[in-house]
């Protein structure tokens, strides 16, 4: 049945249905998303998301900055895990130029990316909890996130927007006390994850709120272009870290958690397990890292002014949210001719009307939080 999508004109003649405008200034809409929902009582008949409230013209800006200058801009795409964006972009440019990154730099990138993944999932799960009324796990998790930030800060001096790495490598070696910090953080992080698990996972209220809510079939998910945890929650075992390995992901041992129904609960569980897997990866990566001599190269030899040859490449990595890709077209000058970012949550969010149809208003919020829509990369 084709349902007419609501528009803003429905405000004036709503008929039997109530049109509710949710956002952009709504506590659960992360400040920048907007959903116009038609509701029958509390049930959503149809919902239409509107995006673009954080469209900052990143792609256009990229055409006016040099390759190097664009790195800080990528920080501001998915700001929950800036490092993954940085690395994705750098890998795209490196691919375009045919640079092979020194292995030690790759290990450092891997460690940092996994830390960023944990930080990202912490935000997602914490916000999911807050949006469902459970505030406390958010605080428990954020304490640990703060510690992860501290690691970032001691690495290169910024907490959130790290501007990590350079084209051709990384800008610094891991600090000497990195492992010490990590060891200090590890038990607390595990404890925080465990406490969240205790507070939420088996709580019937939580289960009622999440299980079966906005379930999605794998076929639909693939057709809509889902990637990352949302796709894995639907039961498709796909992870670029395993399927198209980069860095050292083919040399570390980790599992890919897969859900069954693609509902909010599965997304939550997949993220929870992924955090634990990331911890495993970091532990192994630190072992690999230690095998390198302290003065092993961290940067490939790149010219001072980066001028890739004419061409176009697409390179993607598994960001915390899914496949984050950069398509770069170069015209041989020091500025990219066109940068196209393929943000993971863009694809996920466009399936939103289908996801929430027939659910209740409260589920809309739960669904939105569990998809982990980051406006920065959604609108670019």
């Amino acid at each position, binding site marked *: 049945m084709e349902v007419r999508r609501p528009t803003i004109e429905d405000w004036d003649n709503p008929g039997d249905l109530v049109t509710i405008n949710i956002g952009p200034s709504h506590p659960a809409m992360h400040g920048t998303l907007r959903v116009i929902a038609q509701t029958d009582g509390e049930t959503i008949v149809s919902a239409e998301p509107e995006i673009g409230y954080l469209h900052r013209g990143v792609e256009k800006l990229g055409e006016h900055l040099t390759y190097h200058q664009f790195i800080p801009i990528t920080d501001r795409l998915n700001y929950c895990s800036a490092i993954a964006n940085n690395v994705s972009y750098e890998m795209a440019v490196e691919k375009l130029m045919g640079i092979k990154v020194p292995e030690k730099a790759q290990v450092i990138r891997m460690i940092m990316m996994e830390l960023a993944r944990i930080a990202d999932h912490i935000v997602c799960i914490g916000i999911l909890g807050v949006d*469902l009324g*459970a505030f406390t796990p958010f605080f428990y998790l954020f304490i640990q996130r703060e510690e992860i930030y501290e690691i970032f800060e001691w690495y290169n001096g910024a907490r959130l927007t790290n501007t990590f790495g350079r084209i051709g490598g990384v800008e610094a070696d891991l600090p000497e006390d990195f492992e010490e910090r990590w060891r200090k953080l590890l038990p607390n992080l595990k404890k925080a994850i465990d406490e969240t698990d205790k507070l939420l996972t088996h709580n019937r209220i939580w289960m009622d709120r999440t299980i079966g809510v906005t379930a999605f079939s794998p076929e639909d998910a693939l057709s809509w272009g889902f990637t990352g945890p949302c796709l894995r929650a639907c039961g498709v075992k796909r992870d670029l870290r395993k399927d198209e390995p980069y860095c050292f992901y083919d040399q570390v041992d980790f599992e890919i958690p897969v859900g069954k129904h693609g509902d909010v609960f599965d997304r939550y569980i997949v993220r929870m397990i992924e955090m634990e897997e990331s911890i495993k990866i970091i532990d192994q990566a630190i072992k690999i890292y230690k095998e390198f001599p302290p003065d092993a190269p961290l940067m490939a030899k790149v010219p001072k002014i980066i001028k890739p040859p004419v061409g176009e490449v697409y390179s993607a990595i598994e960001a915390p949210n899914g496949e984050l890709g950069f398509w770069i077209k170069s015209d041989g000058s020091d500025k990219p001719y066109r940068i196209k970012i393929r943000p993971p949550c863009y694809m996920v969010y466009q399936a939103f009307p289908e996801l929430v149809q027939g659910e209740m208003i409260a589920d809309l919020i739960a669904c939105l939080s569990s998809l982990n829509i980051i406006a920065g990369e959604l609108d670019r």
Partner: protein
Amino acid sequence: MNWVIAIIKVVFIWTWCLLWATVMTWAERRGSAMIQDRLGPNRAGPFGLFQPIADGIKLFTKEEFRPKTARKILFNLGPILFAIPAFSAYAVIPFGDKIVIGGKEILLQVADVNIGFLYVLAIGALAVYGIVVGGWGSNNKYSILGGLRSTAQLISYEVPWGLALLAAVFVYGTFDLRQIALEQTGTFLGFLPNWGVFKQPLGFLIFTVAAYAEANRVPFDLPEAESEIVAGYHTEYGGMRLGLYLFGEYVNLYTLSALCVTLYFGAWNLPYIDMSKFLGPISYGIASFVVFWLKVMVFLLSFIWVRWTVPRFRYDQVMRLGWKTLIPLALFNLLITALFIQLTV
């Protein structure tokens, strides 16, 4: 002379309620902070105790704003309708046994009505008016949703609440709250304090759950569910009107806790100890008051404690829990109680 005492009692209990509702807002903030590994407001006065006063001053001096589309009368009426029942309900709940001053026996209760029980039920149901009127008067979709949610929720939970209380009435055989309190002395089955909770464990459970729903507290805080409908019925309210809503909530909590203590936790009676035997008349009066107040505080704190632990229900789940679980359970409880009484008496 009697009306002087009555006025003193009214004023006292109002200020007392107000005081503890104020302290509760502080306790809520500090308590939640302590649960969440942080500190909470600690800058205003010692331990941040003056925080509620600062809030009050600020809300009082804030611009009183009424949206153009709001219904003037209803908009103004909402908070008042919400706050008044919360205060009035306390009229019949005893807050201590009795105090003898100058040979005159003063009951620590504003009005010793023999149907006090029914009065509480009736007044408690009134609070929903404040929410729904406020929500409707704001003329905001979120507010109306919040108001509707709270209506459905309060009506649904009024039923198991009443049924649970009815079972308690079966046990005590009276509608008089003072009488109920007095019945809970001595021991039950030889070793337990003779408290309602031991005679009516299921009833107590249902009462507590329903009380959370009546008070709109997590996990039943749907009418003001922050992440769903912004601030629910008080979305459009600011300034002191909002203050009344926020404040009324805590007064409401205080009343509910007091009712719970009166019915199920032996009011001012200590387990195994009869205070009246070894305390003077005045000190006994004060002691009974303090004991009662301490018990109420425990309940108030448990409201906070639960709030910061569990997630929120969804609307239909609240209804399901109310109609499909609590009401049958309450009926079952009623049946068992009736049978038991019929067989033993």
